[in-house]
């Protein structure tokens, strides 16, 4: 029976079979587009230099802050009151960079699912080093067919096994159905870990059990459908006064801080393949563009360079981690109030609402813009307009992005939260039953949702749903 690997090779053959011949070197040199582009780039040198400087600022940012504040660090001390909570922020930024956005929307659960519908567990072995991440999802119907390639000697009808190997490392993946749950695993280890699939069982809640005799110990586990207590995202990038407005941001520094009810462990949160290291005695997961660590027992912090051309090294990431400081809520509110300060408005519209008129402003232009709401006698709140792939990754299916185009902006004030978007033909409608009022401001739609409503949903004809969560602040 053909394996998935066979299918992939066959697919490549199909696509490449009728491909036209490659350009010869002579054709390449004489190609008009090459000549045009060469000319364009030559003419545009000053701009390119500025652009490259801006693009590479993120890596410089970490170095700068490390130089300026090499020893400063304070750890957040979560309290029971949000008003007194501390917030993790960079102590300094590279020249030209600003805080673009703060997102304090209600955190969603760890994965799609309901309590008891599945779980995720990570376990590892110190010597020889190996790590596994296994997820379970309750099998909805009896139709699941494991799609991995190499059959595994499991119980009858229990699926398959697939391996990916390389010279120095081995990555293992498997998926099968056991005890009513679809079990998907991926792992890393130098030796043959095929036996691990055999050792796994699943309890009634979908939690994976494995044989301790294998030498593995559990790092952590979490049931599906469990949401963190709070989460906020800080997005930093070059100011629109630095970048041309037609360009999307070439680079964004995203800081995500999540508070959980229970203790967290970066070894669990970072996944099976990420490299772990000790930073000042704390485990941290480092990658080329980010780091995950736990600055306090129930707090998980992540820094990621999104859309970065420049990769960062481990030392830079450690410096960045160390450069973050904690501030209290009033100072955090001051930061939020300063978003989009100094950037010119490109549109302003009064929005009549039952609770009183507000003003809707568009600050900036193009793909670097904010939408701001200003109620009477209240400081304005601004949110950066995101185009779906920023922060969530371009690996999302493009047809999802077609539905989303730009993400709606949500802003909370007292008893209501506002959802603002630009209507696009063919967009699936919102669940308007949850919306208190609906009006327009210039080219934008403004939905007013009572604060008692935690989210509203849109669903297309194919069943794809997109949920917008209420901002907590």
């Amino acid at each position, binding site marked *: 029976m053909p394996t998935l690997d066979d299918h992939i090779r066959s697919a490549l053959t199909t696509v490449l079979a009728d491909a*036209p011949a490659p350009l010869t070197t002579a054709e390449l040199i004489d190609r008009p587009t090459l000549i045009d*582009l060469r000319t364009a780039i030559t003419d545009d040198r000053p701009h390119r230099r500025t652009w490259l400087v801006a693009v590479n600022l993120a890596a410089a940012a970490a170095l700068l802050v490390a130089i300026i504040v090499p020893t400063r660090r304070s750890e957040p001390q979560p309290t029971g009151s949000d008003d007194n909570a501390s917030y993790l922020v960079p102590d300094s930024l590279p020249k030209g960079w600003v805080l673009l956005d703060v997102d304090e929307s209600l955190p969603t659960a760890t994965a799609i699912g309901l309590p008891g519908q599945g779980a995720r567990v990570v376990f590892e072995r110190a010597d020889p080093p190996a790590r596994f991440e296994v997820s379970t999802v309750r099998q909805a119907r009896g139709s699941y067919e494991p799609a991995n390639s190499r059959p595994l000697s499991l119980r009858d009808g229990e699926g398959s096994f697939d391996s990916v190997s390389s010279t120095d490392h081995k990555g293992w993946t498997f998926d099968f159905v056991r005890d009513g749950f679809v079990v998907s695993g991926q792992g890393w280890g130098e030796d043959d870990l095929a036996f691990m699939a055999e050792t796994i069982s699943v309890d009634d809640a979908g939690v994976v059990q494995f044989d301790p005799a294998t030498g593995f110990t559990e790092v952590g586990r979490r049931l599906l459908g469990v949401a963190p207590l709070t989460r906020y995202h800080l997005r930093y990038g070059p100011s629109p006064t630095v970048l041309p407005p037609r360009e999307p941001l070439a680079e964004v520094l995203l800081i995500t801080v999540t508070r959980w009810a229970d203790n967290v462990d970066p070894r669990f949160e970072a996944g099976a393949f990420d490299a772990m290291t000790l930073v000042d005695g704390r485990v941290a997961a480092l990658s080329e563009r980010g780091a995950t660590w736990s600055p306090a027992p129930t707090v998980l912090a992540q820094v990621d360079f999104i859309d970065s051309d420049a990769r960062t090294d481990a030392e830079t990431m450690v410096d960045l981690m160390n450069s973050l400081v904690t501030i209290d809520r009033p100072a955090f509110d001051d930061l939020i109030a300063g978003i989009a300060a100094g950037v010119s408005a490109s549109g302003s519209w009064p929005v009549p609402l039952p609770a009183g008129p507000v003003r809707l402003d568009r600050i900036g232009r193009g793909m670097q813009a904010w939408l701001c709401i200003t109620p009477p006698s209240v400081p304005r709140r601004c949110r950066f307009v995101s185009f779906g792939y920023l922060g969530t990754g371009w690996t999302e299916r493009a047809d999802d992005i077609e539905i989303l185009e730009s993400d709606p902006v949500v802003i909370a004030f007292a008893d209501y939260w506002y959802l603002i978007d630009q209507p696009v033909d063919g967009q699936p409608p919102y669940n308007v039953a949850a919306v208190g009022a609906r009006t327009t401001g210039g080219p934008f739609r403004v939905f007013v949702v009572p604060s008692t409503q935690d989210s509203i949903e849109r669903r297309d004809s194919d069943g794809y749903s997109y949920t917008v969560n209420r901002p907590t602040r």
Partner: protein
Amino acid sequence: MDQQEWAAVYDAHAERLHHLGVLLAGPADAHDLVADAVLRAIGSRQWPTVESPGAYLAQTLVQLAEDGRRRSTRRRLREARSARLSPVDRFSSAPDTEAALVVRRALSTLSPTQMAVVYLHYWEDLTLDRVATELGVTPGTIRKQLDRAKRRLRTQLPQSPEED
């Protein structure tokens, strides 16, 4: 590096670059993407000091595909809405059987980096460590990208060639 030297580098890696171009941009735009990548690479400050020019060309091509995909979002969405075409249909100009169309659409769901990993691993039979070297990232990143690509393809590709 003068023209003769970079031309020799291109010659040595033309097939790989072209295949990646076809996979990432479709047959109609592959030549443009490859030409752009060569231009970008040889015009960069790093080019004179690059240790592995072939790998650098491939990395530049993948990066250009990522950039192009990101920056043309709004334009493609408008076109897609007006023409009611999938915005990721890189192969819309290629004549297809229905089965081939399914395969092309399945591959179109991969990100450029995932596509490059799949090509280098399955077509050129490179080890994952070697793929990591060619794309300038760690083996761990390659494993993640390959795993995500396979998870996506297993839901998109036809179950078996016989069913085609």
